[in-house]
């Protein structure tokens, strides 16, 4: 780890910029009603922020509010309030956290009251729960709902018919709803300009994420990655501020590469990269820093993650195309990670293990999110079999503190890292014991679930 001074100075630059952007957005939300601005609640996966920018409305992301509540240790009380009101203990805690926050005054991450929505924009991408979530919110607010159903890539492709369906919904449902809300016609030139800015920021984000292919990795692509995706997955994609943020971030990461530095953590930089991991699944938010430290204190760096693709997969080459504004929005929505079928997810994670030279795949399975979690044990087995690296499995939740058992999780992570270490030793012993002309093939591993 670096010194506290280094850690403190590392908060300059992109981090400060992002903090200012978020503060500015919530400040704008607080003033929205007074200034006559319209507010649209919508979701991160499959968000169509550029279109919202074209109409000059302000987005609110309930998932972001929930995860912020988790990080601020408020989610437990909000979830309890929702369960007291009849919401099942079995269902998504993002939903319950949001309902609980709403019933507790709807005070957002900055402590200021969030404005009520003028429109619920239900972009139904990759997660069934979104639909039920807004059906619940619909009863709480006197505002219209615009539904945009994005078909799942069940066969691993987004067909022209699927794209036409989403574009038709944009034309007949979403754009008319925004036009009715704002009294303005869609300005396609303004939309295209925003999409062009998205493209620039997306290039820089991919460069940042792919910097983790280096040794040592200059970033942590999971715990650090959730900060890097913040602006582009939410209110800022398509803005000049996002372009500036990602340009700054990329320059900082390039500098870390030049200096041969490891990733920044809240406790300073990791100076000795001991393990390189790929992580599948969302993080836990209630104990985020404690969770991160379980890895960083062991020298474990996450070099690639699926969660940083939940609001858009860009490292496969996709970029928003300003020449085809509605079509490109449809393709973006369809390509979000949880809208991809399991074989595609397995391919992607296997590719990450190989291209990022990872020592293992660790799955953080969250109770709340069946979209991610159903099938993860198969993913684990398949990636192990294809890549030969060991898989590990831990269970937490998004924002329900009752499902974060620190000692248990730490024990599992340490056991998993020991398993990687053991494999290395075995491989080293074999290499010294014999000099076969052809290495024996790795046997397909049995399912190894750390429970």
């Amino acid at each position: 780890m670096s010194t506290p001074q280094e850690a403190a100075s590392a908060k300059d630059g992109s981090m400060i910029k992002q903090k200012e952007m978020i503060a500015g957005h919530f400040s704008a939300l607080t003033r929205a009603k007074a200034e006559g601005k319209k507010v649209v609640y919508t979701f991160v996966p499959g968000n169509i922020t550029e279109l919202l920018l074209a109409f000059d409305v302000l987005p609110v992301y309930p998932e972001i509010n929930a995860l912020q509540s988790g990080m601020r240790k408020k989610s437990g009380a909000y979830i309890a309030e929702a369960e007291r009101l009849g919401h099942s203990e079995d269902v998504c805690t993002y939903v319950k956290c949001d309902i609980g926050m709403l019933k507790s005054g709807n005070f957002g991450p900055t402590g200021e009251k969030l404005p009520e929505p003028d429109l619920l924009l239900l972009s139904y991408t990759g997660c069934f729960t979104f639909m039920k979530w807004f059906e619940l919110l619909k009863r709480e607010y006197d505002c219209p709902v615009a539904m945009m159903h994005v078909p799942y890539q069940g066969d691993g492709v987004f067909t022209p018919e699927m794209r036409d369906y989403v574009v038709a919904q944009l034309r007949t449902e979403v754009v008319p709803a925004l036009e009715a809300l704002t009294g303005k016609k869609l300005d396609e030139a303004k939309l295209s300009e925003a999409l062009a800015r998205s493209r620039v920021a997306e290039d820089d984000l991919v460069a940042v994420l792919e910097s983790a292919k280096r040794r040592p990795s200059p970033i942590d692509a999971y715990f650090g990655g959730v900060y890097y995706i913040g602006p582009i997955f939410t209110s800022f994609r398509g803005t000049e501020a996002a372009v500036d943020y990602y340009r700054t971030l990329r320059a900082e990461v390039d500098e870390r590469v030049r200096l041969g530095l490891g990733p920044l953590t809240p406790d300073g930089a990791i100076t000795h990269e001991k393990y390189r991991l790929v992580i599948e699944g969302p993080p836990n938010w209630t104990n985020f820093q404690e969770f991160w430290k379980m890895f960083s204190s062991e020298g474990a760096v996450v070099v690639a993650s699926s969660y940083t693709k939940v609001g858009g997969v860009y490292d496969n080459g996709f970029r928003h195309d300003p020449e085809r504004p509605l079509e490109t929005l449809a393709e973006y929505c369809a390509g979000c990670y949880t809208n991809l079928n399991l074989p595609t997810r397995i391919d992607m994670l296997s590719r990450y293990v190989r291209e990022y030279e990872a020592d293992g795949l660790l799955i953080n399975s969250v109770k709340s999110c069946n979209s991610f979690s159903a099938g993860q044990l198969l993913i684990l087995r398949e990636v192990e079999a294809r890549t030969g690296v060991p898989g590990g499995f831990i269970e937490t939740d998004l924002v329900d503190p009752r499902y974060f058992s620190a000692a248990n999780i730490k024990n599992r992570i340490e056991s998993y890292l020991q398993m990687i270490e053991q494999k290395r030793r075995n491989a080293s012993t074999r290499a010294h014991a014999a000099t076969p002309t052809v290495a024996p093939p790795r046997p397909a591993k049995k399912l190894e679930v750390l429970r």
Partner: protein
Amino acid sequence: MTNEAESGGAAPSAVDEVVARAEALYHDVELSSVQRWRDAHGGAKAVGYMPIYVPRELIHAAGMLPVGLMGGRGQVEIIRGDAWFQSYICQIPRSTIELALTGRYALLDGFLFPSICDVIRNLSGMWKVLFPEKYVRYLDVPQNYDPDVGGRFFGSELRSLYADLCALSGEAPSDERLRASIALYNDNRRSIGRLMELRATEPWSVPAWEVYLALYAGNLLPVEEHTALVDAYIAAARAASRPRRDNARVVLSGAFCEQPPLELIRTLELAGCYVVADDMALGRRWPEGDIEVTGDPIAAIAEAFITRSPATAARYEPHGDRGAPLVQLVRKSHAEGVVLAAPSFCDPALLEQPILQDSLDKERLPWTAFKYSENLGQFQVIREQAGTFADSIKLWSEA
């Protein structure tokens, strides 16, 4: 199995006969009836499908047997299935995987996974990995109900699916055959509709568990045989003159995917509830009413889906209140209360339960709620809860 003890008299043998046949199908976890059908049809193929809804007409018109897969129904010991799913995921994917990994689905040539929730959706991907030799398709259904938008999309999905199914069976696509299949399924839905009407007007004549078995049989039987079975059951039940009891009339809601154990359904009636409407095996009753048998048959199926799908949790409610259809069902079926029975960890059913409860409260309609799983083995608590609920309706309800 008969209902003599509960009905207060000897059940006529005609009813016994039909119910016994249906119950044998319910217990047929080996799909031996499907094997018999294949043998009798020169090895013709069979395609399995998950709840809630797939257009079975397409499978039938392609010359194959549609086979409804509704989990293990508590009759399968889950050994391998639990290795694939975390503790917080519902039961039906576990038993479905178990049945497949133990070879009980080996005689099925294809599998359809319709859009219902993220678990069943992801199960389709698991199937692609685990059973690469089988035809596997996730069937996305539109959540947009504009015929020119969602209808057009669904039509394109159905055309593609029908082409796949014909390729699987070796049959040439044929609008004529599709129209003939639609007509057969229209007959089937009409018969089921008559059974639902009888159940709503004379629930004492058709116990809920028998009705369920009659519906369940449609998962396995060829459509014409199933229609005949339902008709035979209606006739036999009408003739049976079963005694009327002072039970509470209830709607059972939430059981559209993972099915409650048969014993649970029986328990509700033993506890004093007549189930006058429910959403079990809902796919048998989907869409509501006939599908047009002239013109473009694929367009007709898409149109029926867009305009006449029943309200259920997996379907977005574009207009009004999500709780309104349940209230309407209560009114239409003259129910006195609602039993909200949802499978544990069922996102669609459980997420919307507060909405349904609120809607029922606003209408001053009594309800009770519990969770189950398909392999539930203890029913005493549910019997007490349902019994108390029925008593409270009878004693104090304003409905």
